[in-house]
């Protein structure tokens, strides 16, 4: 459509557009309704953003705690590290408390994607710490017990279950790393203990199969690979452990495995 050039034409068009705009905005019920929608959507998006920010902090601090815990085997005083880790996790729990506050009165599933990554990382860190202290798997009840804020519990166990499975998948990745580190240090007993633990977790996940959320199936696949490598390494230790000088054990291990990074939290 051609617009007439020239002052008169363009002024007329501009006025017409303004008039349309003005009349639309002043009297229309449609526009009034959309203004309400704008507020509703803005409120929801803002909350989502706040949750994402807190969740990111939770993820970062949890990851740092995990790296800290990996140093346990290479340092004389493990207790110091464990206490430091506990303090860090307390700070993380504070942050999770903020998430709980944001979610008060809301349907948590509406914002699930915003915070699930952080929660999974926290679960990984908390269960890793628990394992180092107690050589056992932390339970859902124990995790929830530390996460009760004020009087209302943030997430019922069902919401957390998905996070727990995700976090556990991450945990097993971290376990494999510990396994390598302990072998590298010439500690022969820990690998077998660890593989036993890993096997339990793997069998548990196999039992669940793919009835769980999609992320769990992905982690199960990785877990299966990790477990295979760990079992191969145990075999190598058993067969050749007595013959090989300790410092070469680490080489045997690394020739059979690739370095496993702790799992990233899945968004």
């Amino acid at each position, binding site marked *: 459509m051609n617009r007439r050039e020239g002052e008169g034409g363009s002024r007329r068009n501009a006025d017409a557009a303004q008039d349309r705009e003005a009349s639309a905005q002043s009297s229309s019920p449609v*526009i009034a309704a959309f203004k309400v*929608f704008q507020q509703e959507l803005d409120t929801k998006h803002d909350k989502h953003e706040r949750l994402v920010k807190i969740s990111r902090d939770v993820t970062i601090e949890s990851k740092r705690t995990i790296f800290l815990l990996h140093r346990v085997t290479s340092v004389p005083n493990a207790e110091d590290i464990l206490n430091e880790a506990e303090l860090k996790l307390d700070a993380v729990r504070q942050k999770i408390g903020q998430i709980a506050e944001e979610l008060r009165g809301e349907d948590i599933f509406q914002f699930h994607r915003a915070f699930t990554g952080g929660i999974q990382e926290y679960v990984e860190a908390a269960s890793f710490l628990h394992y180092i202290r107690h050589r056992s798997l932390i339970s859902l009840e124990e995790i929830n017990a530390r996460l009760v804020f004020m009087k209302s519990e943030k997430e019922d166990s069902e919401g957390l279950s998905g996070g727990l499975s995700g976090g556990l998948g991450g945990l097993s990745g971290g376990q494999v790393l510990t396994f390598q580190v302990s072998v590298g240090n010439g500690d022969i007993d820990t690998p077998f203990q660890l593989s036993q633990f890993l096997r339990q977790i793997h069998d548990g996940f196999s*039992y669940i199969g793919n009835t769980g959320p999609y992320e769990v199936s992905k982690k199960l696949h990785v877990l299966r690979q990790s477990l295979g490598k760990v079992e191969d390494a145990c075999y190598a230790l058993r067969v050749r452990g007595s013959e090989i000088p300790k410092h070469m054990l680490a080489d045997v291990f690394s020739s059979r495995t690739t370095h496993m990074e702790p799992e990233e939290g899945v968004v």
Partner: protein
Amino acid sequence: MSVTEMFSHIQGFLSADQDIREDIRKVVQMLEQTAREILTVLQSVHQPSGFKEIPSKCARARELFCTVRTTIADLKTKFPMEQYYRFHEHWRFVLQRLVFLATFVVYLETEALVIREEVAKILGIEVVREKGFHLDVEDYLAGVLIMASELSRLAVNSVTSGDYTRPLRISNFINELDSGFRLLNLKNDPLRKRYDGLKYDVKKIEEVVYDLSIRGLTKEAETTGGDK
């Protein structure tokens, strides 16, 4: 609790979850069936013969919405109401379609945009989350956008059917809708993507109006007092 016990517990929970979803899926299928029936009824307004029968089509559609209300009442019983968003994905698609259909019916009846509360009433659901199974604002808006596409098609077919005035009214309606949507601060989500399609609807309708006006067809309709 041993590892095995814990996974057993988790498995039990996941199993129960799957059962609920299976129940929900069955009911949603029924909803989808009814939605298709309503759509079939309303589609016919695009044909020349269907044009005259708009009032009866709308009445028929309203009857079918009774069935929708009953089915949704059943759906509400399948899961705890505080977990609406946990299962929301199962019915999101069909709910948006139902919003579109309700909005379309009201447009055909009144040539106005139905408000969210009215749509919720047609579907037999709430508007506010705390009160129960509710119509999320984003689902309502998505349904409205689907209707906008349907209207651009209707504008074209109105002309073909000989109604030269309807496109102009549709054009005003869509432009107002567009103004409304431009007030929203949309994030990069499915609603935003759907909204991006609105400009093509706007353009298509503008072209129809343009085609009519340069040929003087709109004036002709006015002078003959044409009101079809």
